[in-house]
């Protein structure tokens, strides 16, 4: 166990010290500095948004609520960030969770149906807002547990195992709401999506808190390391005594909980749970966010913060498309091209090729040495 930690840790440390001591501009085209390129991509997209709409960075306070495109971006990115947190851990174990969108729909449906009973005058304590939120999150955790059992215990390939709930989940959500799309008026649940603290939308706080909590959980303990080791080589980590089954169950449960909270936020935004459309395609947003954040789909090293950056990139791109004069027909193509460019920015091979292309120029300019 201890030996393995050393093995995994050593190269990382070397890399860090190298970066810190002899940083070279040239290395940008060679080395593996995902963080820099992800942040750069985000800045470029935000600046592009600013070019599209001069008021993009303008933030005004209206009725105690901050408004502006930048705030909209953060607010809209919150559910994607939440999903990407769980997705990062799952992908780090060489898995994938396709069911998060459907789990969002299930948990939104659960919360709406339960709170409707409270609003109808039921005195049952389980229908009080606090309990409704807790139950919805518990349901999310159970959905995650289900995925985890299929993947970890029955060894079903993650993409298929979670596809089951992805497909069935919307049906379950429809059964929960009886085919309807219930609305509610409860202020506590509405606060999940619409509330503000110091003018900042509540979902933004939720996303930040979730990020910090999960970060501390995996990085201040050996958990993160164990997750990575399971993703890199499940067999080897098994022989070193890592219980891959528990680790996998854990990451899918976290993913389910994150999806549940995202579902509560999306439902709260409109005080309405639509089993047909809630969280539709958001599993793809989350996966793209994780990939932009540099975590490999083949598992292993992961970064929660960079995945969150990835989510911000996706949302600022989406908001940019909303405010542009571009015809909606072009949205998907532009989105695809921009994401491709972001991924190319991060591709070591691509950068090396570009680096070779500019090599003669770099030689002439000592600044770059």
């Amino acid at each position, binding site marked *: 166990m201890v030996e393995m930690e050393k093995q995994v840790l050593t190269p990382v440390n070397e890399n860090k010290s190298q970066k810190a001591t002899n940083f070279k501009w040239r290395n940008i085209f060679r080395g593996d500095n995902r963080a820099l390129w992800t942040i750069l991509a985000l800045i470029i997209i935000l600046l592009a948004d600013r070019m599209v709409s001069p008021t993009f960075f303008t933030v005004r306070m209206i009725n105690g609520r901050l408004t502006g495109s930048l705030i909209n971006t953060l607010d809209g990115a919150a559910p994607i960030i939440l999903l990407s947190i769980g997705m990062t851990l799952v992908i780090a174990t060489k898995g994938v969770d396709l069911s998060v969108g459907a789990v969002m729909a299930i948990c939104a449906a659960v919360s709406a149906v339960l709170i409707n009973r409270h609003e109808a005058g039921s005195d049952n304590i389980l229908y009080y807002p606090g309990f409704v939120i807790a139950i919805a999150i518990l349901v999310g955790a159970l959905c995650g547990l289900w995925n985890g059992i299929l993947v970890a215990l029955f060894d079903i390939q993650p993409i298929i195992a979670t596809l089951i709930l992805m497909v069935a989940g919307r049906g379950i959500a429809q059964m929960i709401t009886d085919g309807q799309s219930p609305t509610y008026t409860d202020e506590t649940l509405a606060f999940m999506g619409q509330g503000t603290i110091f003018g900042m939308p509540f979902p933004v706080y939720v996303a930040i808190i979730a990020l910090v909590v999960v970060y501390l959980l995996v990085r201040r303990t050996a958990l993160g390391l164990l997750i990575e080791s399971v993703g890199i080589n499940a067999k080897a980590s098994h022989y070193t005594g890592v219980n891959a089954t528990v680790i996998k169950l854990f990451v899918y449960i976290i993913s389910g909980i994150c999806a549940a909270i995202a579902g509560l936020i999306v439902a709260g935004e409109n005080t309405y749970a639509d089993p047909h459309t809630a969280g539709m395609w958001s599993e793809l947003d989350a996966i793209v966010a994780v990939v932009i954040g540099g975590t490999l789909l083949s598992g292993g090293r992961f970064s929660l913060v960079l995945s969150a950056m990835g989510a911000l990139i996706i949302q600022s791109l989406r908001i940019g498309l909303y405010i542009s*004069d571009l015809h*909606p027909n072009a949205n998907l193509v532009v989105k695809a091209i921009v994401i491709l460019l972001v991924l190319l920015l991060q591709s070591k091979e691509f950068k090396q090729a570009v680096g070779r292309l500019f090599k003669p120029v770099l030689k002439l300019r000592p600044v770059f040495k």
Partner: protein
Amino acid sequence: MKLVKFCLLLALMVTFVGAVNVKAQDGGEGLTIGFSQIGSESAWRTSFTDAVKAEAEARGINLLFSDAQQQQENQIAAMRAWIAQGDVDAIILAPVVESGWDDVLQEAQDAGIPVVIVDRNVDSDPSLYVTRVSSDFVHEGRLAAAWLVQATSGQCNIVELQGTVGSAAANDRMAGFNEVIALFPGMQIIASETGDFVRAQGKQVMESFLSSEDPANICAVWAHNDDMAIGAIEAIKEAGLVPGQDILVVSVDAIPDIFDSLDAGEANATVELSPFMGGPAFDAVVATLNGEELPKWIPVAGKLYTNRADYDADHQ
């Protein structure tokens, strides 16, 4: 001579068809009709199914209902079963996709079973089916625009929330709306984006419009469906404006939720997307069994409503 022969033949055919099918009653009582429905993917679809079932019961029609669960194969299988058993007088088909219906429609025609298409279109040759009963999306767009023109005296900067890109509902509603506002130079669409017919996305897009445009410059939001309009209303409220007053809200569908907003003064008008296509479809079946010629498209036009009371009065 040829003309006389042709006329004779035509007369013979008409008498023949009429003679065979004299059994059809005015409302279709006693008929057995197969209804292949797409599924139950939206609240509107469910109410459409319910409306058809209720209409059949009221008319004394024996309705064989088949839920295809979004699969064309299921629809074709159900139709083939009905054709093979020969116990249906007609088939009503709500197709899930446009293409791939030629064979089964031909089989139905060979078996002498008329097929009426409802809701979405098919790309088969119109001779293979009796008629198509569907909403007139263009009309809905025109009606919404006409209301807005009148409410604003033809002076209005509009933001548009489009439906799913490429869908017939989005394309045709947009075309109808634009057709009418083009007559008024003061009516302009200053921003337009797709909200995919989804409430959450309608809200997000409207938030973006309110941030990128000067909110005081936006006179109305035109949403291709009620869900997006309701999302937009939330966004307008969060931006500190009064929906229905500062920014007018007009949309299409007439789902139950929009009437809460209409009665609260937060939305202004909605055009009904009628789920009541059963009646015209059954009428078409009866007419064709009686040998009448029908146009190939029977549009079902919804009315525009500004409050719940009017709607309820029309749907008792």
